[in-house]
């Protein structure tokens, strides 16, 4: 029983990290010039 919870938590932690680092942000591209400025 404990094992199941542990594996779930570990998987959750891994998924969180993957989401944070691997999945590219769907938003704006890189800013190479001042954003929204002149």
């Amino acid at each position, binding site marked *: 029983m404990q094992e199941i919870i542990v594996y779930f938590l570990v998987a959750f932690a891994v998924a969180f*990290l993957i989401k944070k680092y691997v999945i590219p942000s769907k938003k704006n591209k890189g800013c190479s010039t001042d954003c929204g400025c002149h």
Partner: protein
Amino acid sequence: MSKNDIKVALIGNPNTGKTSLFNQLTGLSQKVGNYPGVTVDKKEGTSKLSATQNAIITDLPGTYSINPTSIDESIVLKTLLKKNIKESPDVILVVADVENLKRNLLLFSQIKDLEIPTVLAINMVDQMHRKGISIDLSLLKKELNTEVILISARKNEGIKEVKEAIIRCHLVAKASPLCGVNHKIDPEYFNTLKEISPNYSLYELWLMVTQNNFPGTVTKLEKEKLLAFKQDVSKLKKYQHKETIYRYQEINKILKKTYIVDKTKATDLRGKLDKIFTHKIFGYVIFSLILLIIFQSIFDLASVPMDFIDATFAQLSDFAKSNLPDGVLTDLLTEGIISGVGGVIIFIPQIAILFLFIAILEETGYMSRVVFLMDKIMRRFGMNGKSIIPLISGTACAIPAIMATRTIASWKERLITILVTPFTTCSARLPVYAILIALIIPDKKILGFLNLQGLVLLSLYALGFASAILAAYILHKTLKVESKSFFVVEMPNYKLPSIKNVFFDVVEKTKAFVFGAGKIILALSIVLWFLASNGGAAYENAEKVILENVDNQNLNEQEVQQKIASLKLENSFIGILGKSIEPVIRPLGYDWKIGIALITSFAAREVFVGTLATIYSVEADDEDTTTIKQKMASEMNPDTGKKRFNFPVGMSLMVFYAFAMQCMATFAIVKRETKTWKWPLIQLFGMALLAYVASFLTYQILS
């Protein structure tokens, strides 16, 4: 939050006490969230306007004009041009400061031209007398065609009237523009512009053209027509200039009738203080002294709460271990989660204290003088006077420090600041330094009073700062990034810091660390725990192997357990990883055990110490550094027959951590702020390479 809540946007120049007003209106209900699609955080809170009416107040970044020059300021533009019913404000509350009313009214006039219901709150009126200022309020209201309230946010005066004004204002469907400037500049041009769409005010259309910012509701045809207006760039610039001049003409006309300053009554405290604080020599001396006081205080004040937190978490861990049933989950909880969370919480005192000092310096207005003093020096290294704030903040934690770079207008200067801030010695490095210094630096005094250990620590801080500056210089000369350098900093009036504002500011920045870094550190702690508690066949057999050999040695139960733990770790996944990198780190004087600690410290640097504790078979919940120290001191290098943690190795490790790649939490924030993988990866590999080379040289030279 209900549909009836009035959406209010709070706008104003920096240094007008806008934050005070926001705090008065929303109090503890304020929270920081995310603007969709942008990295700047949205500050929001609810306010009870009356018994039946609530408001959701969004505090927008301070700006001098709707035309933005930095990421911070572009938020104001984006919010106001949104026209998406859900996002756009019902009422705009403009905050002005009574002393700089003329300049503040520029922004106000722009806002009014958007034809959104607006309320003007003139703040700091408690200072009016001292400055010899008098205002004809009723005439001003008439001239501006707006609700105008005189307030003192700090003293909580006028707040009720502001709330009432917001309610009244909300009932007005559409407001009329103030300046209607555009016609005077070039009637034909602007009439054509206005005809493009009836759905927007003339000023909105003008902003779309000049700022290249089109709300979602603009049709394709409309957009095409608007883009045609952008063809003549010099014309646009000229018209913007003329617009500004015209606005000021109108403002001057109005103020002449309504605003009088009797200079003889005014006291010039600012002038007197500035003579000292911006003095060519004393200015810098005072700044250095202040820095010294700050750092000394951090060390002195932080240790008490830190020890308390340390003890509490150790007790919590013990409690959990003895009261929960034996098993994997309990292990995860005590060794992974509790220690992970504890590792984050323990830094709060240090970080909060540093941010407290910085907040106080900012609130008093002194920080602007520091920016003034430091700009020329910072420019040499490709940064901006404003970069000094992130660099100092980085000694607490790089995450809020990097977020503070948002006020830097020039992209190149901002980028360089972001990339080099992690070089400054953050709080997490301290436990690593502390234990290594205790191990290899003798505890004696030189010159009779200077503590040698303290000196080494100080030099490590200096090393961090020096490498930040040097890296900035190199980046400055090599980075080919397009950007315009621009620098206009307001020197606000000196004022006493408001406890409320300082409190909310510190809480906000500390939360950024705890939740920003904390989540990542916790997740990594869980993963690392898993990797350290599981392994292949050798791992499973570890217990058997030890027990078979135990009769040969006279060990008690505790020592046997420790030996089992040690062997298990060696054969766990992480142990295997550590062993595989050993050949690479051996030239630095490290072995696989240290290798494991290096890997785990990727999550958070201070994890290094905890990992070593486990590796050297110290009791997991006994974080007594004397014990760890003894163990590390007695650890032998099997190849040389001498101590593992000797002077060269210790120095090599400290140098490694001075330059080592940023922790994963910092990596995440750099990625978020630069909106690309490129920069955090360059930072990672650059710093790792530097750390490797530097510690290699250190070890080889010293041994």
